[in-house]
């Protein structure tokens, strides 16, 4: 077996299942249950990558999601992922990973030159340099960018699938350690709907790294027992491999479950790689544990320096002893557990304790185990070469621990464990705007749940266990249970019945020495050795000092100036140490310095999982009309109009768009054409006061519209600007049918309803949207009557069925409402039938029209045809800054009727101004030139810009019926300038001469 650091036994592994994997193109073997990190350590590999800024070699620092160093490029090709924490990646057969941020290799990295030049690159050095000359900045930037970044993005679309789902529960427990398990049990037992999430693959939390007894059984047995009990409860949902990433308002929480990811690429089959849970919880119990805090000492970033508790985790959870000779540097007792366990596992351990006189139960145990102690001392240097620690240099601390005295001694070792105590994982509580309080005795922040603040009153939650600085196991178990009870009680469950008996043996801990930044043989920051308080972004104590020196006093400024806490780990292991450096510099306490803001996600969240299944076809709905199947069969090219797919044109025989549109336009004027107008918004209005409402909504008068009659109207907002238009028909007394633009349908419906419900509740009008009730085929052209006559017995001559009226009749045996309105200026019938008949109607009309060469036409031909007649399109010829008068539509603005929306705005000084932009027609000097829409007119043509613009082309087409190009434009004082000529300079430097005309190009 090549796994030289693998212990003979132990670990939650399946040793019968060896797994092959590749790291930096070399094959290794691990076991099922390993993470990439544990497997690499088992194989004696601990040089994982190069650091962000200085390209210093880095190794594995932790055993969990707090990992700042061991980021790898996982997998290849479409499956690749940058910046994956080796400590979290579960091993699977064939796993492939590479080191990042180094070239040509992690062992020999060109970028390491940065390390040599590091003295030139203090925090914020960019801002001070690369300015000479300024014109070269873009070149400098290229190199800066190349040097930055870590891994590489995939270059192929993601082959995996994702899923997301809503969920609701009474109590959500975050963290499946002893506290969380107990909380779940308590709340679950009384019948509350509980969800328990934990980011690890198995439940147990820190117990997985432990070997104590609870109630007389081993931790593993205890975990199994509890989980068995939980699995029996139907009201409990257990989600492992699930990270609670965000805690939002009103107890809305987002969790990311890695469903099949741990099986590796190609393995996932149908099941998603990840699932996003969007959870509404009535109560939340945060039992997220604590993260070990490092000590900051000289060259503390060397591969082989590791959190003390991580070593313990590797021993117990993974059966790996990452070093044979271990030096443990600590300021507290908890590292003694590591020392004891490592000794038992066969390592030679020396404890360097910065305390003067460590003592107490654990100390004695350690001494009994034969562990050597060096007290009141620190590591002042590391002899590191060829990827390995060979020995560390030890010196004694002086009085207050700010300096060292005496002579150096060397201590051979291959692994350094550090412990600076613990930092409760308060991220989530803080994300939810919960206030934190600082515990002076425990030197950390915890959730201030006793004095809840108003900003998070919508987020009822409990904080318990190590994440509340309860470090004793018994304490965690009991308080966890109580929290679960209280949470269930808060939801309304009866909880008096249940209790939990706990017994476990725990030695009392001796006090910590509150010192985290440890001196060396030269002043910190002034010499060769570096003190990294933050490994991920290569941020040193000297950087913080520099920032403070330069006046960046606020912790937020320091963060941004030094980038500390801004890496992919978001400073999980470094934040508190940064604060302690800053508080020392500013001679104030840590709470006075304050923390930076915790923000989601807790650990980086895959974009794909945020999207879930809502990708490709499910990204956004495509709305289709009843006739869509016919359009598909007949080769329609579609235009996106809002969510709708509308036929743009119907090319035949490989026609170009231009040819198709010209043909369609000619057909309509010469014979007949059929347009799918189903997407028009339609509102059914009933009640005594409809005409009163219409008088307010539209600019023209509505009181005298007789049954069966139609009228066109312009709708304005209160600014007096046109925002929609359409035809409204009186179906019968007090019953109207309103149409709106396709894009404006929802807006108009909401506009109408809001006024009715809030301002005029007494107005007797009911409005019902019927947009999709009716499929609409608009039959246009001189032959349209002849076609329709074939399909109905109803008289449709001009006299029985005049222009601007509506009749109900059967068309092809289908009950229909037919409107004689026209957007082309031709004889036209808009046939409305219930949507289920839409396709049948369309096919019947096409069939009947065959002898007249009936031509289906799309939106583009419709645009041309209406422009030939000078009809506007709201949203194209208007843009929210245009009044009816600007459109030359004064005729539709009633002077006599009372108030209507927007009317008061007409007389504002700017709106009443002469020489506003007005809608006019445009003819190019060369009739074959079609101006681009959006081109601008100028009075005086100059060699080059700037030129004063007087207006722009809103619509522009080649009109086959007029036989030349036509256009419309909004032009300053346009009405008074008809007949005058102007220029349209284009972006390619050319320019066209144009004349202003009336916007009606084909008259009746």
């Amino acid at each position, binding site marked *: 077996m090549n796994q030289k650091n693998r212990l003979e036994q132990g670990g939650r592994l399946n040793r019968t299942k060896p797994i092959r994997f590749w790291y930096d193109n070399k094959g290794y073997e691990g076991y099922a249950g390993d993470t990439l990190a544990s497997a690499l350590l088992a194989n004696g590999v601990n040089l994982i990558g190069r650091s962000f800024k200085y390209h210093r070699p880095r190794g594995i620092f932790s055993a969990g999601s707090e990992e700042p160093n061991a980021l790898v490029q996982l997998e290849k090709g479409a499956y690749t992922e940058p910046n994956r924490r080796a400590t979290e990646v579960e091993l699977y057969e064939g796993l492939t990973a590479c080191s990042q941020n180094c070239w040509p290799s992690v062992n020999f990295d060109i970028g390491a030159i940065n390390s040599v030049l590091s003295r030139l690159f203090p925090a914020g050095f960019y801002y001070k340099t690369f300015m000479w000359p300024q014109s070269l900045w873009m070149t400098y930037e290229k190199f800066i960018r190349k040097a930055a970044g870590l891994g590489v993005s995939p270059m192929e679309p993601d082959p995996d699938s994702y899923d997301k789902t809503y969920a609701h529960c009474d109590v959500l427990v975050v963290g499946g350690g002893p506290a969380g398990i107990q909380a779940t049990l308590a709340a679950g037992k009384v019948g509350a709907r509980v969800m328990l999430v934990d980011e690890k693959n198995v439940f147990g939390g820190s117990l997985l790294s432990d070997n104590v007894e609870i109630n007389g059984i081993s931790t593993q047995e205890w975990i199994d027992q509890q989980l068995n009990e939980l699995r029996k409860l139907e009201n409990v949902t257990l989600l492992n491999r699930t990270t609670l990433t965000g805690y*939002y*308002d*009103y107890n*809305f929480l987002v969790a990311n479950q890695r469903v099949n990811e741990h099986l590796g690429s190609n393995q996932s089959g149908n099941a998603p790689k990840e699932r996003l849970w969007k959870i*509404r919880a009535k109560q939340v119990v945060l039992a997220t544990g604590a993260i070990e805090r490092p000590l900051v000492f000289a060259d503390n970033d060397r591969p082989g320096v590791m959190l003390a508790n991580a070593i313990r985790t590797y021993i117990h959870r993974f059966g790996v002893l990452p070093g044979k000779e271990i030096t443990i540097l600590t300021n507290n007792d908890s590292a003694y557990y590591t020392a004891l366990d490592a000794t038992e596992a066969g390592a030679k351990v020396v404890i360097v304790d910065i305390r003067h006189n460590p003592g107490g139960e654990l100390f004695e145990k350690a001494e009994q185990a034969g562990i050597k102690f060096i007290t009141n001392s620190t590591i002042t240097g590391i002899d590191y070469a060829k990827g390995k620690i060979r020995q560390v240099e030890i010196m004694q601390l002086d009085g207050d621990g700010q300096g060292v005295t005496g002579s150096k001694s060397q201590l051979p070792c291959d692994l350094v464990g550090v412990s600076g105590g613990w930092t409760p994982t308060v991220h989530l509580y803080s994300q939810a*705007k919960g206030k934190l309080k600082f515990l002076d005795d425990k030197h950390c922040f915890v959730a201030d749940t006793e004095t809840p603040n*108003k*900003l*998070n*009153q*919508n987020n009822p939650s409990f904080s318990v266990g190590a994440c509340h600085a309860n470090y004793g196991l018994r304490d965690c178990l009991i308080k966890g249970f109580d929290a679960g009870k209280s949470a269930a009680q808060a939801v309304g469950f009866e909880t008096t019945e249940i209790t939990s008996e706990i017994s476990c043996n725990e030695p009392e801990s001796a006090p910590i020495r509150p010192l985290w930044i440890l001196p060396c043989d030269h002043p910190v920051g002034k010499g060769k050795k570096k003190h990294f308080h933050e490994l991920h972004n290569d941020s040193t104590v000297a950087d913080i000092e520099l920032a403070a020196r330069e006046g960046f006093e606020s912790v937020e400024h320091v963060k941004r100036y030094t980038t500390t806490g801004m890496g992919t780990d978001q400073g999980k292991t470094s934040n508190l140490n940064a604060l302690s450096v800053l508080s020392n510099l500013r001679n104030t306490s840590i709470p006075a310095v304050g923390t930076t803001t915790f923000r989601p996600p807790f650990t980086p969240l895959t974009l794909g999982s945020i999207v879930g299944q809502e990708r490709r076809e499910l990204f956004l709905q495509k709305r289709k009309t009843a006739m869509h199947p016919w359009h598909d069969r007949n080769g329609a090219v579609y235009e996106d109009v809002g969510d709708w797919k509308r036929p743009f044109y119907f090319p035949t025989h490989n026609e170009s768009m231009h040819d198709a549109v010209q043909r369609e336009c000619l057909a309509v004027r010469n014979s007949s054409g059929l347009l799918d107008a189903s997407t028009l918004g339609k509102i059914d209005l009933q009640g005594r006061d409809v005409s009163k409402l219409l008088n307010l909504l539209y600019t023209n008068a509505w009181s005298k519209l007789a049954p069966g009659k139609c009228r066109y109207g312009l709708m304005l907002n*209160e*600014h007096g600007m046109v925002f929609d238009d359409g035809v409204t028909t009186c179906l019968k007394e007090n019953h109207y049918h309103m149409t709106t633009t396709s894009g404006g349908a929802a807006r108009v419906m*909401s506009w109408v*309803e*809001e006024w009715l*419900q*809030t*301002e005029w*509740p007494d107005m007797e009008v009911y409005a019902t949207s019927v947009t999709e009730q009716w499929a609409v085929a608009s039959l246009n052209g001189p032959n349209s009557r002849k076609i329709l006559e074939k399909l109905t017995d109803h008289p449709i001559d001009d006299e029985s069925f005049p222009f601007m009226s509506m009749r109900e009749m059967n068309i092809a045996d289908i009950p229909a409402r037919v409107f004689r309105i026209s957007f082309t200026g031709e004889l036209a019938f808009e046939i409305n039938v219930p949507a289920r008949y839409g396709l049948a109607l369309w096919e019947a009309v096409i069939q009947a029209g065959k002898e007249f060469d009936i031509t289906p036409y799309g939106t583009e031909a419709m645009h041309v045809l209406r422009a030939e007649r000078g009809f506007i399109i709201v949203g194209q010829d208007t843009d929210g800054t245009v009044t009816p008068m600007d459109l030359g539509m004064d005729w539709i603005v009633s002077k006599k009727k009372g*108030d209507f929306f927007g*009317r*008061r*705005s007409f007389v*504002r*000084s700017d709106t009443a101004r002469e020489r506003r932009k007005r809608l006019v027609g445009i003819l190019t000097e060369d009739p074959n030139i079609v101006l681009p829409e959006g081109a601008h007119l100028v009075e005086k043509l100059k060699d080059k810009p700037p030129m004063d613009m007087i207006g722009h082309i809103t619509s522009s087409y080649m009109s086959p019926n007029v036989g030349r190009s036509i256009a419309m434009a909004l032009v300053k004082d346009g009405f008074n300038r008809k007949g005058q000529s102007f220029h349209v300079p284009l972006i390619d430097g050319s320019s066209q001469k144009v004349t202003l005309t009336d916007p009606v190009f084909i008259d009746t």
Partner: protein
Amino acid sequence: MLIIECPWCGKRDQTEFSCHGEAHIARPLNTEELSEEEWGDYVFFRKNPKGLHYERWVHAHGCRRWFNVARNTLSDHIHGSYKPGETPPTIDTQEVSQ
């Protein structure tokens, strides 16, 4: 992500609603008589307070009714909802301001 109580349907996820801004802005009846400033004030100017805000919401994916909500714009805490036409609940603004 708020939970909003529709006066008719009960408590629902915020994504079922849409907000239509400040409530209780009555449309003036005498628009003719208003000065440019008064009209401008009605159309464009808003209280936009930091703290208690009475605002209009519609249960867009539900019963499609408009109603009013009293919400603290700093904490996003909702004090209550009420139907159009009803008088807004009185809320101790002392308590609201943070």
